[in-house]
């Protein structure tokens, strides 16, 4: 744009402040993006924290968190589109896709699998919980894979349940009735439950199901000496597996063959007790996920029955199983009607009875000839006799050992002893035990060990130990030795590549809601951030123990701390915990690691919310960096900086930065911008030659040889610096002599938002001198601990997530550097002089 045109614009104000308004709008988008970015990171951190095992939460929490997360991420993507002229539609699409996936996890529906209506036990195993229900699946597993004596029997499948509903057109009515009550109206719940029960009882078992059940029964009967009566037990989906339905469903014993169909309906109806309904609704299950299978097995004419716990609940650490036993059928073994026999039996030597009580057992339950159970007196000679002999006790404790070995969990087993003296296993499910008492946690700081660091911010709790490995730049990660403690100045998502082999992470700076902290929690790497000086205190190779529970780093290995590493998470089995875990899997893992790789750092590669956020944050910074390049030349409303120094600076105020009247000039002290003040302080810290140090013309006559170089930097009208400012933001395009550089920064109280970018774009000089200048700048930047890379004479450097005062300090140093190197243009006549100047600057200004 020509001088004339500008002057004309100023005079006529043909486009008063239009560009400025546009820029201000972009800056507003940028701030909205930063704010949403922080919200999202905080929400993600919160969700991960809930997975630590220290919290109790419910499904409502997950819903609320996901919904908030979605809102904030949408804001973030909108802001990026606002900033980039809707160039990021691909990211909006990626967000929509990921949101759908998260929603699918949250509303995960159990489909009832298509399967035969009845399935013999021989064909069932533990993986078939959805097909036959939990109880059947466990029985099949024990019979076929563990090899313990389970009676022959069959399962009526969950598919049969679906066929039953479909045959009677109940699915729609079920949905309708279930819609009739709300969580806050409990009277309606009782009504709906009763209606559903009546509806099921009035329904017809489809002929094909009835035929299948009868056929299966006949197969069963053919294997028995006489036509047996059967036991029918509920086997709901999830029952005895992960969900706990504390005996909510029906069981019928001694069922006659002609009653199979009606008892089937009774058991299905028990799916809709008020308690079960409330549970389902409250937990966010859909009614179509409720499904009932049924166990059918021949009635064992039990001489005695009871329960076998593979661990004694009061003292699970003891190597002993616990058995109780009653005469007759098993219901009295747990019902509290009579006192059963108790046996505490050692695993080694197997079957040795450690303790037993044999109280008198006056009554027992037996099968009535006409069906059902009846209570009868125990024959006098048996009242005070033990129900089990040593051989049977030994056999049961063998079962216990076998079951624990197979399921790797203590089991709660129902058993029966038949008239011939044979033992049968009727049910096996995980035994719920109170957790073992853990020793008192050790003191916060172990005084007898040398504490190297006792401060910082814990990002992931835990304890880890190993030799220190300093990561100064990304390339160091290639040599990261497995099991080391990663020590670095700042956080970086690139560390994710070594996290699985990392004992612990320590950094000088960083925020616990930052990207890397999220990853550290995902990989469960004990992490302390913001130690300030870990990189200075710790020596490479030095073995340390990091206690990220109490923010301490000790010299050497401390076994008593390391023992605490594997803390038990008693929540991990609960369905709500699993749901959160699955949701978090769609949200937190980071796949977009390397922003320099355009092939993978793209919206189409976003797999998680974290990827979206990472992408948006990176590109928002790029958009802001480009602001000055693209738009400043056409800006209408600029004012000049009246600095008294030979540097021409035009200021574009994004809002509220300039304290001035109507003048066209402002003094530096009238500029209310944090990053600007810091940078300006550095720029003016050193003495400036008062006359224009080297007139553009005269200098260019020294170096600029031809048209090409004139175009690169010798145009006198281009020797003009621009700065776009807001209170927390600066984008400074500096043209000083032959230097073209951009310093951009956002500095605020939010550590997560803070960053600075330094871009050195070179400028006219001879190739050797340009090379020396670039080397000098790169070396000094390295001393400032900025992440940097250089391509020829182009240098890009960045620093992020340091507290405001440290950002300001770096900006001041960059100001000094800018001035320093500009003055050196004339003197970089040899390679050795470059080394000298590097040393000089570092000693003078950086320290150490």
């Amino acid at each position, binding site marked *: 744009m020509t001088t004339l045109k500008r002057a004309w614009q100023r005079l006529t104000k043909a486009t008063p402040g239009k560009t400025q308004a546009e820029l201000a709008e972009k800056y507003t988008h940028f701030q909205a993006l930063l704010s949403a970015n922080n919200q999202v990171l905080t929400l993600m951190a919160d969700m991960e924290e809930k997975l630590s095992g220290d919290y*109790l*939460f*419910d499904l*409502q929490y997950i819903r609320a968190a996901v919904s908030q997360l979605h809102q904030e991420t949408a804001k973030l993507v909108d802001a990026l589109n606002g900033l980039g002229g809707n160039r990021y539609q691909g990211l909006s699409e990626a967000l929509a896709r990921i949101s759908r996936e998260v929603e699918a996890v949250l509303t995960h529906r159990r489909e009832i699998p298509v399967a035969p209506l009845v399935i013999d036990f021989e064909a069932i195993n533990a993986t078939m919980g959805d097909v036959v229900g939990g109880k059947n699946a466990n029985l099949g597993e024990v019979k076929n894979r563990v090899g313990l004596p389970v009676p022959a029997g069959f399962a009526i499948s969950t598919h049969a349940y679906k066929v039953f509903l479909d045959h009677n057109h109940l699915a729609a009515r079920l949905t309708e009735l279930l819609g009739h009550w709300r969580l806050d109206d409990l009277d309606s719940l009782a009504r709906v439950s009763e209606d559903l029960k009546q509806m099921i009882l009035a329904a017809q078992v489809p002929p094909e199901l009835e035929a299948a059940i009868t056929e299966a029964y006949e197969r069963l009967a053919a294997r028995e000496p006489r036509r047996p009566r059967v036991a029918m037990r509920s086997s709901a989906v999830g029952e005895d597996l992960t*969900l706990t339905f504390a005996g909510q469903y029906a069981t019928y014993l001694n069922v006659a063959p002609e009653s199979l169909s009606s008892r089937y309906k009774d058991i299905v109806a028990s799916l809709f007790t008020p*308690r079960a309904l*409330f549970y389902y609704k409250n937990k966010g299950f859909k009614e179509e996920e409720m499904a009932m299978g049924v166990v059918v097995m021949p009635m064992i004419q039990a001489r005695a029955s009871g329960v076998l716990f593979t661990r004694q609940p009061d003292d699970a650490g003891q190597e002993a199983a616990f058995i109780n036993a009653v005469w007759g059928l098993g219901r009295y073994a747990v019902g509290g009607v009579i006192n059963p026999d108790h046996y505490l039996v050692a695993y080694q030597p197997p079957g040795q009875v450690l303790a037993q009580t044999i109280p008198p057992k006056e009554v027992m339950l037996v099968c009535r000839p006409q069906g059902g159970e009846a209570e009868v007196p125990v024959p006098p000679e048996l009242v005070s006799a033990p129900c089990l002999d040593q051989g049977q006790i030994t056999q049961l404790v063998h079962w216990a050992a076998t079951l624990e070995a197979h399921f790797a969990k203590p089991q709660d087993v129902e058993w029966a002893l038949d008239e011939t003296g044979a033992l049968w296993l009727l049910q096996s499910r995980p035994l719920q035990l*109170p957790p073992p008492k*853990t020793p008192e946690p050790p003191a916060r700081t172990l005084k007898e060990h040398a504490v190297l660091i006792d401060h910082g911010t814990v990002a992931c709790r835990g304890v880890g130990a190993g030799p220190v490995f300093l990561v100064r730049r990304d390339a160091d990660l290639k040599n990261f030795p497995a099991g080391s403690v990663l020590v670095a100045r700042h956080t970086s998502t690139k560390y994710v590549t070594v996290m699985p082999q990392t004992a612990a992470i320590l950094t000088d700076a960083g925020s616990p809601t930052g990207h890397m902290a999220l990853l550290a929690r995902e990989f469960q790497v004990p992490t302390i951030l913001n130690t300030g000086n870990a990189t200075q205190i710790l020596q490479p190779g030095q073995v340390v123990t990091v206690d990220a529970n109490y923010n301490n780093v000790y010299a050497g290995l401390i076994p008593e701390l390391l023992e605490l590493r594997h803390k038990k998470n*008693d929540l991990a089995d609960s369905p709500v915990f699993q749901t959160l875990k699955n949701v978090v899997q769609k949200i937190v893992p980071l796949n977009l690691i390397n922003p320099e790789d355009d092939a993978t750092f793209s919206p189409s590669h976003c797999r998680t919310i974290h990827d979206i956020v990472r992408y948006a944050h990176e590109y928002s910074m790029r958009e802001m960096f480009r602001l000055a390049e693209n738009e400043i030349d056409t800006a209408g409303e600029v004012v000049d900086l009246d600095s008294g120094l030979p540097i021409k600076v035009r200021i574009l105020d994004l809002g509220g930065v300039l304290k001035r009247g109507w003048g066209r000039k402002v003094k530096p002290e009238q500029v209310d911008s944090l990053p600007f003040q810091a940078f300006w302080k550095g720029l003016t810290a050193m003495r400036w030659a008062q006359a224009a140090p080297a007139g553009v013309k005269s200098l260019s006559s020294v170096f600029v040889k031809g048209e090409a170089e004139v175009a690169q930097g010798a145009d006198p009208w281009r020797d003009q610096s621009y700065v776009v400012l807001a209170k927390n933001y600066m984008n400074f395009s500096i043209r000083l002599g032959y230097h073209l550089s951009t310093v951009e920064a956002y500095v605020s109280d939010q550590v997560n938002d803070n960053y600075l970018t330094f871009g050195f774009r070179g400028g006219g000089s001879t190739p050797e001198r340009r090379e020396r200048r670039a080397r000098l700048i790169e070396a000094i930047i390295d001393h400032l601990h900025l992440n940097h890379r250089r391509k020829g004479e182009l240098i890009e450097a960045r620093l992020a997530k340091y507290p405001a005062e440290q950002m300001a300090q770096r900006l001041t140093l960059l100001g000094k550097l800018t001035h320093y190197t500009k003055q050196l243009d004339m003197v970089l006549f040899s390679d050795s002089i470059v080394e000298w100047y590097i040393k000089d600057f570092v000693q003078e200004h950086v320290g150490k």
Partner: protein
Amino acid sequence: MPERILVVDDEPNMLRLLKTILMDKTGYEVTTTNNPLEVSKLLQDSHYDLVVTDLKMPLVDGIDLIGIVKNIDVTMPIIVITAYGTIETAEEAIQKGAYDFITKPFRKETILITIKRALEWKRMQGELAALKKQ
């Protein structure tokens, strides 16, 4: 004598987790039920020092349960567990005589501290009543 706590929650998983947490390293004796209708019988049959209850349950809700418990033992501290975003109901619970409420999700430590405070409060109430009698 260990202090005895009765926990009422309709959701068996929550109940199990609460029991695990309350018994771990504390020495409390914990009884649980997922049937609020059973509470008055449990309280009449044996001695408890504290009741922890969910606010939202089928058949009897937490607010009603406060009245039931207070009818049996007016000094019984009750801690109510509420869902996120139901602060009004939580306040109602306090007005009805609950000792405190705690909002899901919560840290394990939080409920342990609340219980400890409630039990101390009950002890002090007892000592105060004894002093007044003298």
